[in-house]
């Protein structure tokens, strides 16, 4: 039993799922037994706060702090109340280049469920949803089975393990669209509406699903909970190599020898992840840059390889750790085409609510297409720069989708400016040579 890789200790090489029996044989649901009736919700909250766990969905918001905003003297907490509080697991995972939650869901569904029961107990939620993208059919079936098994064991349902805590849990497959992963849009989708994000405040912690207090957390975040409750905040902090705590699911995709996803101490140097785990670049390819944490993070380059992969270090380098799954741009792939693919994606996925995103992103995509296809004009560089300023500024748009879309574009213009300009002066893409227009 590996204590320094808690999240993947039940992950087998063939990625076969861990069922209830195997999960419990390896110490599963001990966290639940340890907490139920022995720790008050406030004790659990303090433990999570002290652990310094930060949300693994991309923004890195401290989990304990988020939970602390949920009103606890709410009428919903009174026995017999018919008002609900909600816990939602965000298993939408549609960020390009991100494939970490799938592994956790398919290999160890009970770890997530145990974490969710403890999270719900801490915030006083009586209804929990796992909002999962519809394409994750295998995980959906496993989670439904796992929930049924928990009911049979008395881990879910009324009076869990003889306490007065009760919890219903539902798996809710999405109907598609990347924006459903944004937490307030997710809540709109759960309410049966178009998935438009909502204005904050009010924050979901106070007024979320059906106007009731709601916590939305990422799969990986919730998978950490029972380990922390069981082993304590200090153990968790000691796992990290830097000031961040715990482990992180890191991934690498692109032209590397061994693309994949690994749980490593948070703060592992980027070079180590790329070389020791991903096996370095495929023969005949060189790395030109990489997005450290999914499609909506800024490019980093060679000079950043020795940085520690944690929230603050990557933030200081001008990017974001995001989801922790890196996408490698190699020297035989066109950076303009790479950025164009991403901006087209964000443009297509815009929910259409606000103008800079709805109208601005298709414009960016069009300019990038012009440049890539050899129709670019010198002034297009200024147009792109202006778009980055207007669309990329937080506060100009209703949610973070549009600013996220501008991150690879802004940093692409910075690091690969020569490639953009060469497309314009040569009237063609020097990676494809043939002129498409």
């Amino acid at each position: 039993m590996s204590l320094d890789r808690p999240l993947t200790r039940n992950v087998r090489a063939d990625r076969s799922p861990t069922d209830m029996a195997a999960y419990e044989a390896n110490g599963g649901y001990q966290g639940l037994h340890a907490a139920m009736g022995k720790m008050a919700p406030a004790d659990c909250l303090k433990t999570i706060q002290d652990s310094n766990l930060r949300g693994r969905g991309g923004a890195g918001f401290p989990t304990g702090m988020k939970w602390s905003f949920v009103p606890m003297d709410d009428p919903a907490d009174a026995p017999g109340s018919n008002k609900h509080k909600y816990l939602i697991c965000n298993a939408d995972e549609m960020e390009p280049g991100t494939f970490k939650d799938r592994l956790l869901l398919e290999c160890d569904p009970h770890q997530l469920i145990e974490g969710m029961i403890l999270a719900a107990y801490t915030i006083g939620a009586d209804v929990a949803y796992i909002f999962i993208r519809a394409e994750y059919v295998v995980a959906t079936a496993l989670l439904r089975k796992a929930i049924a098994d928990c009911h049979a064991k008395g881990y879910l349902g009324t009076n869990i393990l003889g306490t007065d805590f009760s919890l219903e849990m539902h798996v809710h497959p999405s109907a598609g669209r990347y924006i459903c992963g944004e937490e307030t849009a997710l809540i709109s989708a759960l309410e049966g509406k178009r998935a438009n994000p909502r204005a904050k405040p009010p924050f979901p912690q106070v007024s979320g699903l059906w106007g009731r207090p709601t916590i939305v957390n990422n799969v990986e975040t919730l998978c950490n909970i029972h380990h922390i409750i069981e082993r304590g905040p200090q153990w968790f902090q000691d796992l990290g190599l830097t000031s961040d705590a715990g482990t992180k699911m890191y991934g690498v995709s692109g032209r590397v020898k061994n693309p994949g996803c690994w749980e490593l101490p948070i703060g592992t140097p980027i070079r180590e992840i790329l070389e020791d785990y991903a096996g370095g670049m495929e023969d005949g390819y060189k790395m030109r840059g990489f997005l450290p944490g999914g499609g909506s993070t800024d490019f980093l380059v060679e000079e950043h390889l020795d940085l520690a992969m944690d929230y603050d270090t990557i933030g200081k380098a001008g990017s974001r750790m995001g989801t922790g799954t890196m996408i490698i741009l190699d020297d035989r792939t066109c950076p303009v085409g790479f950025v164009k693919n991403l901006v087209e994606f964000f443009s297509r996925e815009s929910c259409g609510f606000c103008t800079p995103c709805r109208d601005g992103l298709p414009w960016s995509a069009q300019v990038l297409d012009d440049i890539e296809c050899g129709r670019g004009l010198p002034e297009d560089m200024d147009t792109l720069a202006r778009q980055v300023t207007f669309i990329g500024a937080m506060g100009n748009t209703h949610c973070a989708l549009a600013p996220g879309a501008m991150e690879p574009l802004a940093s692409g213009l910075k690091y690969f400016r020569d490639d953009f300009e060469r497309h314009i002066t040569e009237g063609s893409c020097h990676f494809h040579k043939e002129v498409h227009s």
Partner: protein
Amino acid sequence: MTMRQNLIAVLSEGEIAEIDAELAHVPIPAGAAIDALKIVQAHRGWISDESLKAIAQHLGMSAAELDGIATFYTLIFRRPVGEKVILLCNSVTCWMKGCDSLQQNISDQLGIGMGETTADNAYTLLPMTCLGACDKAPVLMIGDDLHEDVDPQSVAQLFQPGAEEQ
């Protein structure tokens, strides 16, 4: 005919029972709009105008409002689709690893472009956002099945008669 009979004429008893079970979980009927669309789609493959109106009527909302919801979501089909939907990932890692030529292969083999359905109604080809399997790029789904590390050779086999039974 009463409104209710009218509705039953379009939606089956089974569909109505499934929708009503969802209504128990939501404070207002419109809250089950997406669930209801998915239920009817699971039975019929897609949401016709007729189905849309019947669902809207059952949930006490206007058909226009329900259509606004239906057309927002990529996996609610407002046009008929084939028996299996092919979801080809066209996000950045799969793009670097050749999803465009994969699409060409599929199109040549099945004789359909993006968004089209084969004449025998077996397949509809659709683009899809990152399928969360980028370490195995390029990937696609056929119905519920994910296919990883697909190349022109292996993709040819996927659509051969009997390929699914292997």
